[in-house]
């Protein structure tokens, strides 16, 4: 980010966007502590946002409120300035390190360090200590030391910091995992990219990925922010894009640009929920559904051909729900009715039937369906009414990172998919809002979805929709190495 942007946290709750107070700019990586989610952002004192479920966010003061003096330490201000922008956070051992931008008159800037042992402002142990400046730029060199991104190399536990903003290079230095300060401070920082900002690294399958933001920020709907990336076999690069262009020469494969009603994504952060479920956070410069303000977003992180890809939180709509294991489709266990048309091997040179067959809906065929609870099963998709499910976000029912819980009903009815006490599935005649009727849909790395009820009656163990046989769904513990619990949502 090139300019200070202080964005008020607003209370807004449009459909399928984070709820509560997600308005922010330059969010840090979203981190979890004790099941709660935390994120920090640009603003006076570094605003804090907290969420109990990753869906509904609330503002919780600023980081600097818990720092003696309430502002960057004197050495940080001397190296940079007293602004507080674009932080990032990581846990290292029993400490949390927050790195933040403290620019003066750019490119004279510094990145400061805060050290704490808990993220929970309610904890008696909650406080932050000034860790001093970590890196800085003198206003002349080819670097603007803001926008820190901190990364732990899973291959050896080493800690690294990338930073920089347009003026010259994005740079990489190694950190001391115990102190958060530079390791080998005498060594020259490594240049890894140019003409970019908001950098951060992730690792997968032997590749280091450097994600940066290109384009212009801070102009609302006129911002051209977009997230780009390159990858390398070594943490120090060179980071090449999909065309082999070095990010030091301006390369960068697009990860996410403006789309839909959201303009200017930037400041990527990885949120790994385990079990192979990964999300990423970013902010949009302008969410047109919220009057064009800048907001936090959390979306699924997919992987394709060795590159990360932005997935989609499942949108409201009507879908065929197909098992990746069996290729069969979730349906109400009722006798289906053919959708129409002649039987037999038609269309072999005879007259062409031109009248389209209308879609089959529940109103046409449901008169014979039982009134009470009905089982569900899997069957070949025949475009029939009992095979079409409507996903509808449910207000005030909570959620999970990126989405609210949703009800899943037979299209055109209120008949809702539900978990049973014995860990099986059923449909109930009408949605009541009970937790076993609320579903989360996490998109997985391959683009399929994991479907889980908010809770299963009598079970403390999270269970996922599972294809146990070609015709039989059930609920079972999620296994990331199996297709059993992977589902495709297809538009009928």
């Amino acid at each position: 980010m090139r300019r200070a942007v202080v964005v008020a946290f607003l209370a807004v709750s449009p459909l399928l966007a984070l709820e509560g107070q997600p308005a922010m700019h330059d969010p840090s990586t979203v981190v979890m502590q004790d099941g709660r989610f935390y994120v920090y952002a640009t603003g006076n004192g570094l605003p804090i946002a907290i969420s109990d479920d990753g869906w509904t966010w609330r503002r919780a003061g600023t980081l600097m409120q818990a720092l003696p003096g309430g502002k960057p330490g004197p050495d940080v201000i001397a190296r940079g300035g007293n602004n507080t922008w674009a932080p990032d956070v990581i846990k290292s051992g029993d400490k949390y390190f927050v790195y933040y931008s403290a620019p003066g008159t750019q490119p004279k800037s510094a990145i400061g360090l805060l050290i704490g042992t808990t993220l929970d402002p309610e904890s008696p142990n909650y406080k932050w200590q000034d860790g001093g400046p970590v890196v800085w730029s003198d206003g002349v060199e080819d670097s603007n030391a803001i926008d820190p991104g901190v990364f732990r190399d899973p291959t050896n536990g080493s800690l690294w910091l990338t930073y920089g903003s347009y003026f010259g290079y994005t740079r990489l230095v190694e950190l001391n995992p115990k102190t958060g300060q530079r390791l080998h401070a005498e060594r020259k920082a490594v240049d890894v990219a140019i003409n970019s900002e908001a950098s951060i690294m992730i690792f997968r399958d032997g590749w280091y990925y450097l994600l940066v933001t290109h384009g212009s920020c801070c102009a609302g709907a006129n911002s051209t922010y977009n997230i780009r990336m390159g990858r390398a076999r070594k943490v120090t690069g060179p980071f090449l894009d999909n065309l082999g262009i070095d990010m030091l020469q301006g390369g960068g494969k697009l990860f996410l640009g403006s789309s839909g009603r959201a303009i200017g994504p930037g400041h990527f952060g990885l949120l790994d929920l385990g079990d192979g479920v990964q999300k990423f956070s970013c902010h949009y410069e302008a969410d047109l559904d919220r009057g064009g303000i800048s907001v936090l977003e959390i979306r699924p992180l997919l992987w394709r051909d060795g590159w990360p890809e932005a997935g989609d939180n499942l949108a409201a709509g009507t879908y065929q729900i197909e098992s990746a294991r069996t290729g069969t489709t979730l349906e109400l266990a009722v006798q289906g009715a053919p959708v129409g048309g002649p039987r037999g091997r038609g269309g072999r040179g005879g007259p062409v039937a031109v009248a389209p067959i209308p879609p089959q809906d529940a109103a046409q065929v449901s008169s014979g369906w039982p009134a009470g609870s009905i089982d569900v099963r899997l069957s070949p998709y025949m475009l029939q009414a009992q095979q079409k499910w409507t996903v509808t976000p449910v207000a005030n029912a909570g959620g999970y990172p990126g989405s609210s819980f949703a009800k899943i009903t037979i299209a055109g009815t209120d008949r809702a998919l539900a978990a049973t006490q014995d860990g099986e599935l059923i449909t109930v005649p009408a949605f009541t809002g009970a937790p076993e009727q609320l579903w989360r849909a996490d998109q997985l790395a391959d683009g399929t979805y994991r479907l889980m009820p908010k809770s299963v009656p009598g079970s403390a163990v999270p269970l996922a929709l599972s294809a146990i046989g070609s015709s039989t769904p059930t609920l079972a513990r999620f296994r990331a190495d199996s297709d059993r619990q992977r589902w495709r949502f297809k538009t009928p």
Partner: protein
Amino acid sequence: MTLRGLLVTSLAILSVFVRPVATAKAPDADGFLQQWMILEPIRVAGQLTDGAVQTLVKTTYFPDQLTVMPRNGDTVKAGDADLVWHLVETDRYNVNLYHFAYGLKKPTSNVLFWIVTVVDAPREMSGVRLAVGSNAASVWWVNGAEVIGIYNDRQTVIDDGVSKRLALKKGANVIRAAVVNAGGATDFCARFLDAEDRPIRGIAVSLPPS
């Protein structure tokens, strides 16, 4: 030619083997049950929808059809037909009902097969599932309770229909099914899965001696 002679002659194309004497038999390496009592086919309309099959299996063809534990060679009278129970053993995952009926010079299309076996469990086993496949539709009972039905024209696929979690009691458990075929090939397979979806092998088919 005697029935046994006919069947032996047909063995080159049969995947089933009719045995005169039942002996306890463990499931195969993949857990499939390979020894069954099968009644000669009953002629039916051969409709395969959910409703039609449920109507078929709720029709009484012979006394105690949902409780009888037949022995090899037992006969029942279904309508005007005298039908014989046969002890059938397969060395494959499935039992080929087409070959069974064809070998007996019985119809293979528009028919209903009653099948039954007994599984001896060394202890109570809860959280298990009966996993079946059939060509075509079939309805299955375990110890008298209907546990799974699969309908419409379909091919036998391993673990096509899987019951909800159930318990096998210690000792004898009766597995019964009705398989309905409209035309063409007809067969079935069945095994039990444990709570982790693994085939259960620590049981044995234990049909009563003739």
